[in-house]
C-alpha cells in the first residue's frame, strides 16, 4: 500500500491554540501565559510527531443502491457516499496519523499539569489536521493535473456515513496495520490523532460545501467558526 511522506507540517502556535478549542486572537490579548505554553508545547511536541499518510486509489466499478463498488470488490456505502462520490471515476482512500508518541506524552503530562497536557493535545490535533489538509491538497492537485475535479473530503462520522460503517470500510481498503493504526470494535482509531477520509475524482464532481454541515457533532460543537471563518 503506498505511503505518502509529507514534507514538514505547516502549522504554528495559532493552530495549537485552535486545537485546544480557543480563538488565538483573544488568547493573545488576554493570556500571554497560554500563548507561552502553546509555544513550548509546539516546540516539544513537534519532535514527537510521526506523520504518515497511507493511501490507495481505486477505480469505481459501479454505484448500486447507495453502495459504491470499487475495483477489486471493496465497497463504500451510505447516503453521503452516494451523494458526493456517486459521479466519481476514482476514489482515493486516505489515512493520516501523527503516531502515538505525542498523545502518550500528553496523557502522562496531564496527570500532573492539565494545562500543559491540553496544550500538547492541541499540538496533536493541529498536526493531524495540517497533515490531512496537506494530503488533500496533494491529491487534489494531482487530480487537476489529470483533468479531474475532486469531491470534498468525506470522513466516517459525518451525517450519512456513520463511524461504525465507514471506518471498517476504509480499513478494509487500506489495511492500516502496516502503519500501526488499529481500529477498536467501537470504530475508534488508535493512535487517536489519526484521521481517515475518501476523495472522489471525476470529470464533473460536486465541489464546494462546508465539511461542518455534514458533521455528526454540528448540533453541539461550538468550534465550527474555527473550521469555517465565514460561519456566523
Amino acid at each position, binding site marked *: 500500500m503506498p505511503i505518502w511522506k509529507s514534507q514538514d507540517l505547516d502549522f504554528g502556535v495559532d493552530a495549537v491554540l485552535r486545537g*485546544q478549542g480557543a480563538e488565538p486572537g483573544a488568547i493573545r490579548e488576554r493570556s500571554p501565559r*497560554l500563548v507561552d505554553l502553546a509555544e513550548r508545547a509546539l516546540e516539544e511536541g513537534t519532535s514527537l510527531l510521526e506523520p504518515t499518510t497511507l493511501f490507495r486509489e481505486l477505480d469505481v466499478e459501479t454505484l448500486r443502491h447507495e453502495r459504491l463498488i470499487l475495483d477489486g470488490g471493496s465497497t463504500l456505502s451510505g447516503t453521503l457516499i452516494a451523494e458526493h462520490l456517486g459521479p466519481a471515476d476514482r476514489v482515493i482512500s486516505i489515512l493520516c496519523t501523527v503516531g502515538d508518541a505525542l498523545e502518550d506524552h500528553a496523557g502522562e503530562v496531564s496527570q500532573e499539569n*492539565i494545562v500543559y497536557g491540553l*496544550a500538547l493535545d492541541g499540538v496533536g490535533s493541529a498536526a493531524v489536521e495540517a497533515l490531512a489538509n496537506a494530503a488533500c491538497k496533494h491529491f487534489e492537485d494531482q487530480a487537476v493535473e489529470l483533468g479531474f475535479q475532486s469531491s470534498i473530503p468525506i470522513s466516517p462520522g459525518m451525517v450519512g456515513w456513520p463511524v461504525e460503517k465507514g471506518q471498517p470500510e476504509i480499513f478494509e481498503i487500506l489495511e492500516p496495520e502496516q502503519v500501526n493504526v488499529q481500529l477498536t470494535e467501537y470504530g475508534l482509531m488508535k493512535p487517536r490523532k489519526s484521521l481517515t477520509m475518501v476523495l472522489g475524482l471525476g470529470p464533473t464532481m460536486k465541489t464546494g460545501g462546508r465539511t461542518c454541515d455534514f458533521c455528526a457533532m454540528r448540533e453541539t460543537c461550538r468550534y465550527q467558526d474555527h473550521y469555517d471563518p465565514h460561519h456566523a
Partner: protein
Amino acid sequence: MIENDLIAELKEAVIQGIPEKAVAAAERVVELQMDPVEAFESGLKPGISEVGEGFASGKLYLPDLVLSAETMKAAAKVLEAEISRTGTKRSEVGKVVLGTVQGDLHDIGKTIVATLLSSHGFDVIDLGVNISPDQYIEAVRREKPDVIGMSSLLTVTAKELGIVISKLKEQDLREDVKVIVGGGAVTSSYAEEIEADGYGQNAELGVRMTKFLLSVEG
C-alpha cells in the same frame, strides 16, 4: 481593608489564571490569620464562577477555564491546609465518580470536568477511560457517590450511557445516585431518553448541573 484586598486579589488571580499570584495571596491570608474558609468562599469561588460564566457564554475558551481551575486548586491547597490545621470546617458539597464509557478512550474532557469539580470543592473519584458498566456499578457500591458523571465523545459509544443506567436500575442502585451525562456525542434529548438526571453540554455546564442536582449554592 487588607483582608478585602487579599480576597479581591485571590478572585482576580483566578480570573486571570496566575497561580503564583493566587498562592502568594493565599499564603498572606494564612500569615495574617484570616479566616481561610471566608477567603475560599469570597475570593476563590466567585473567581472561578466568573470564569465559568465566561466559558458558558462563549467569551472564554477551554484553556482559560482549565488555567483558572488549576490556579484555584493551587491556592485552595494552601487554604485547605490551614482549614485542616485550625480545625475549621468547609461545607462538604458532595462526592462524584467520573469516567469515560466503555469503548471510548478520550481522557482530556473528562479530566477537565474532574479538575473543575475539584476546584468547586467536590470530592472526585476519576475512574479513567473505557469504563465498563460493571466498573461503574462496583464504584457506586464502593464509593457511595452522590453523583456519577459519564462521558462519551463518540456517537457509537453513547449507547453505553443507557446501559449503565439500566444496570443501576437492575441492581437497585438507581435511587441512590444522580446520573449526569455529557461529551461531544450526547444531546439533552438523548440524556432525557435514557433517563439521566442531568446533561452537561460542556465541562462548566456539567459542574453547574452537578451543583443544581445536589442543591449546592454558589
